[in-house]
């Protein structure tokens, strides 16, 4: 139960239009107050449990997303917030858009909406918590995501 009571989130904005971001931040504000569940928006991935991703991923962001994901210690959960993060949304066939977050890293839960209401994001966090518990129990580790293929890390 320890994990479920203290989920620290890291918010990663990859190519989002800000709509979802401000709703994620709004979750922490007095009206919704996610800290009731122990949620803290922690800055560094090293201390995070839940990775909240907003936005459809673009090519410049792919490595950022992977690096941050790799730096979160297990057990960890990825929560895709908003239509863009889930499937690419309205931007799914833009030239610089890779698609939903699940194209790059494994995603555990999705929150629909453009933009999702803070309540929906809270629902998503609660859903993520049970997944987190299961992962801990089953000792499921997030696989290290390799930087490869079309998203080569350097051009040097």
């Amino acid at each position, binding site marked *: 139960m320890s994990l479920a009571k203290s989920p620290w989130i890291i918010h990663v904005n990859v190519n989002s239009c800000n709509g979802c971001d401000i709703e994620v931040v709004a979750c922490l504000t007095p009206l919704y107050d996610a800290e009731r569940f122990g949620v803290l928006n922690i800055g560094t991935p090293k201390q995070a449990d839940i990775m909240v991703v907003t936005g459809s991923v673009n090519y410049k962001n792919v*490595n*950022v997303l992977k*690096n941050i994901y790799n*730096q979160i*210690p297990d057990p960890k959960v990825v929560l895709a917030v908003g239509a863009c993060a889930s499937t690419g949304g309205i931007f799914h066939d833009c030239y610089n858009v890779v698609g939903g977050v699940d194209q790059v890293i494994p995603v555990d839960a999705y929150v629909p909406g453009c933009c999702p209401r803070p309540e929906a994001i809270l629902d998503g966090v609660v859903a993520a918590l049970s997944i987190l518990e299961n992962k801990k129990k089953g000792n499921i580790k997030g696989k290290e995501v390799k*930087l490869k293929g079309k998203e080569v*890390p*350097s*051009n*040097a």
Partner: protein
Amino acid sequence: MIENTVMLLIIVPILFSLLFVALPKSLYKYLAWAFFIIGVALSVNLVLDGTGVVQIGEPNFAMFENIVLILEVLIILFILAVSAKYKNWPTLGLGIVSAALFAYTFTNVPGVEGASLNIDQFSQIMILIVNIVGTAIILFATGYMDEYEEHRHLNRQKIFYFTMSFFLGAMNGLVMADTLGWLFLFWELTTLCSFVLISYNMDEEGINNGFRALALNLVGGIALSIGIILLATKYEISTLSGIGTYAGTDAAAMATVALPVALLCIGGFAKSAQMPFQSWLLGAMVAPTPVSALLHSSTMVNAGVFLVVKLVPAFAGSSLGTAIAVYGSFTFVMCSALALSQRNAKRVLAYSTIANLGLIIASAGIGTPLAVAAAIMLILFHAISKALLFLCTGEIEHTIGSRDIEDMSGLINKAPLLTTLAALGMVSMLLPPFGVLLTKWVSMEAASSNPVVIVFLVLGSALTTVYYAKWLGTILSSSMDKNAVPHKKPETYFPLSFLGLAIVVTSIFVFSIYNYFIKPQVEILLKTAPVISGQAGQFTSEIGAFAYAAIFVVLALAVLIYLATKNMFTPRTSSYYMCGENNLEKDRLMFRNGLCSYEKSSVSNIYLQNTFGESKLTTLGYAISIILIVIALAGGVGL
């Protein structure tokens, strides 16, 4: 027999210095090992021989006196010749003044019938420092100098080792001599040796700094000789212990000898590079690192504080004592502040040395038994720690080719043993349970009765923490830009490890050291000993307790916990948090910048140049310290 040991202590270094000249370079290594072993043996032997006074009377005395006379003439001639050759007029002027004073002494001052060498516990400590730490430094030098000379295209090692060894002999004489005339001779010999060593590189910078050292030390020497002349002519005192006997603990007697004592102290200040004179010690940084180590830890500067501490009975509790205490603590805080803005490791160490010597002088000035005990202990612990730090800096410089603190970032990965030793040296300078902090604690407790001094000490110790913490953190951090080539020569690493071990051992056995050396010495100086007990791993005085044993235990506990938990909790190594833009292939500290190329992130420490910059503070320091010295002198004259 103590007489033999004493003579050997002076003769053996001179013998070795001649051997260094005579034998080829390839044998230096063995010579240095031999010197180290003999040095250790002799000094331990002296301690085992116990204390005593060696009287030199007729018929030997006349011969010795003649040697002394000839040497003094030679010294003055050398100074005059050298300063004339390099057209250094201030030094020449000072040399002429010295010569005049010498002539005056020769004609007007009544001669003495015999000379005496006084071996008390303080001398024993000093002998131990000089002959163990000093020879360790020479041993280190054999592993160091070849590369040093190679870089600078020099070939002066014969002179180097000759002077270094000779220096040790002079120091041995200095700390044992009781007759003021002899003391003065050894005093000038060390000055001369330091001049040769500082200008070792023979480039313009080296020679200039050598002359600065020479000039400032001549100023000190002049003050010293005036003091000696005054003592001899007015009070008919010709020995160091005689001053203490004369003044006793009697306030009136103290007041009468205050002026010559103050002059002697000024000589000590110059030698110890206290505030208005500090520039020579900083200039001495141009010399090879073993020279700095020797000057800073075991020899030169210790001579000054040695003299001041020996004079404690002549000013303890008087207004002169208070003035000296304020002056010393002022140097402590000022030089700690100056060290804050330095990024050159050797300069940091230099300022730290001056600051610590200031602390010793302040403790001596306070003059309570506790404070004097602190002063003597600080000389011991500071010598070991500072020698280690200097040698480590030298070795780091050879490893990474820089003495800039910022360049040392991440050294732990490239040279773990060296870094650990350097870290130990730094930790021992500022954290419990190590000796230096213990003595700092003692002196703070002792100084708590003097408001000005304690406030200075408080500020200074906070500043000390800051500049060492910066350096410590930097070498222990985990990234390295520089190309580091650790050379693992036994000649260099043995002295380092030996000194590191010495720090730990002396810190653990601090109470035994206190009981054996310091307590009797304080009794000799002040007739009373501090009330200190050492039960239950604590160093307890009347007003506090220093639980060093508990801290050692806790430190060991931390290591144990770390080793036990190291492999728990599924350990994993990951990359740095670089806001997501890492480069995992080349360097883990690289990140991608706006131009889509990779760049290394780096961090430098805060140096506060604007607040604690050298140029600003130095002027202020000169002004205030000169005022303080004038006050001390004025107090001495009785104004």
